[in-house]
């Protein structure tokens, strides 16, 4: 599984999305479950899955899937497999 697929599965797991509901263009306002608890859950999942510690401030700044990819790329995770 490449990193894009891992990120897709992570979003589906954290926000209970079906494959049809997920897209790489998703934004926080598209997902009702992406509330303050969702931010914490996303940070925990990014740590679990990619081994990257994301602070609460960094997690709050993630506004969409692309933002999660950018945050991970800053930690050395590549999405250009």
């Amino acid at each position, binding site marked *: 599984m490449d990193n894009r697929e891992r990120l897709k599965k992570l979003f589906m797991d954290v926000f*209970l999305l079906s494959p049809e509901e997920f897209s790489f263009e998703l934004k926080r306002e598209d997902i009702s*479950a992406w509330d303050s608890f969702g931010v914490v859950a996303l940070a925990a999942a990014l740590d679990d899955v990619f081994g990257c510690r994301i602070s609460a401030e960094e997690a709050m700044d993630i506004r969409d899937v692309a933002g999660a990819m950018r945050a991970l790329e800053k930690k050395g995770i590549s999405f250009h497999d």
Partner: protein
Amino acid sequence: MAHIIYAKEADSDVKRLLDAWLNPETFVLLPERPGVSREWVDNAVRGLPEDARERHFGLLSSGSTGQPKLIVGSRERAEALARVINDFQELDAARETVLALPLSYCYAFVNQWLWSVVFNRRLVRARGFSAPNLFLDALVNSRDGMLCLTASQVPLFYKYFKDKAVFPGIIRLNFAGAPFPQKDMDRIHGIFPSARIFNNYGCAEAMPRLTARSERAGLEGNNVGRPLPGVRLKRDEQGRILFISRYSAVGFYDDEGYKPIKEGEWTASGDYGEEIEGGYWRVNGRADDVFKRFGEKVSMPQLLDTVRSSWSGEAVFYREKDDNGEDGCVLVVSPEPSEKEYRDILSVFRKNHTRAQWPIRLESVDSFPFLGNGKIDRSALVKRRDKAVHWHQRF
């Protein structure tokens, strides 16, 4: 000192239980696998108060929580309840009762065995689906029979009996011990075309009935009917159902010792519920099935309704604390779902519930373990090591 009878002995020797009932000495009827040690039972018997050492009886209640309790009933009260049930269900028309549940289960013990003793009716000892051929014979040959079932047994009629599953000799059919299978009523009428069907509600401490109602189209499955004569119900501030019944147990023994149920004292049935229109009562779920997580109320029966909107297999929740020590619940489904199916189940949680109400994990098993009374054995399920984990919350 009370004496102990194992259900297996009572099954193989019909007179044994009757002799015990007619003998003044209190007796305890235990299931084949009581789940407690003989020492525990002996301690329970030794702990009985003086006034319960004669003309009483004890039944073990394992319940779905797995915490054993020896419930002590008065024979006089139990016989009175058998008469009330007989009147309510017009059971004078029934000539026999077919036993499909363990005799040590207070539902079968009072509604069937004791009823057959008080009204001098035949008790047909079929062992339910643990001996399907015996059960089939009993149902085929029954004339004007009464049968007591739990909802979980209904699908087994098709599984085991297929096109033979039509039994016009059964004229009364009782359900208890689990939600009433209102949605399956057409199918059940097809299996038992001559039966009047009743929903019965109670608990072991009530020994065992509190309410009953006749099946009627349009009523919800969780409508358990009106209190029987001699029974009063109320709802406490937390929404729990409390009862006072002239037929209730006189006390019970658990790990903390013997506790009397005093006359006139309100006792918890173990369920949440409320009175609805016409004096009927609605049961909203087990009291220990509702809890708080991150300050939010979580009702496992409500969550189960959510699951059923997207999953046609079986499902059950059990309680577990999460890594933070917060109360939570785990969803187990059977059979194993495909990825699309489990994603669909999860998706309805997102659409209908807040994150605090989502399960901690989604697991599956090939088949559920059942208690003798037909309920899913959640204690055994928790211990099962073959559960597949499909999803877990990361928090």
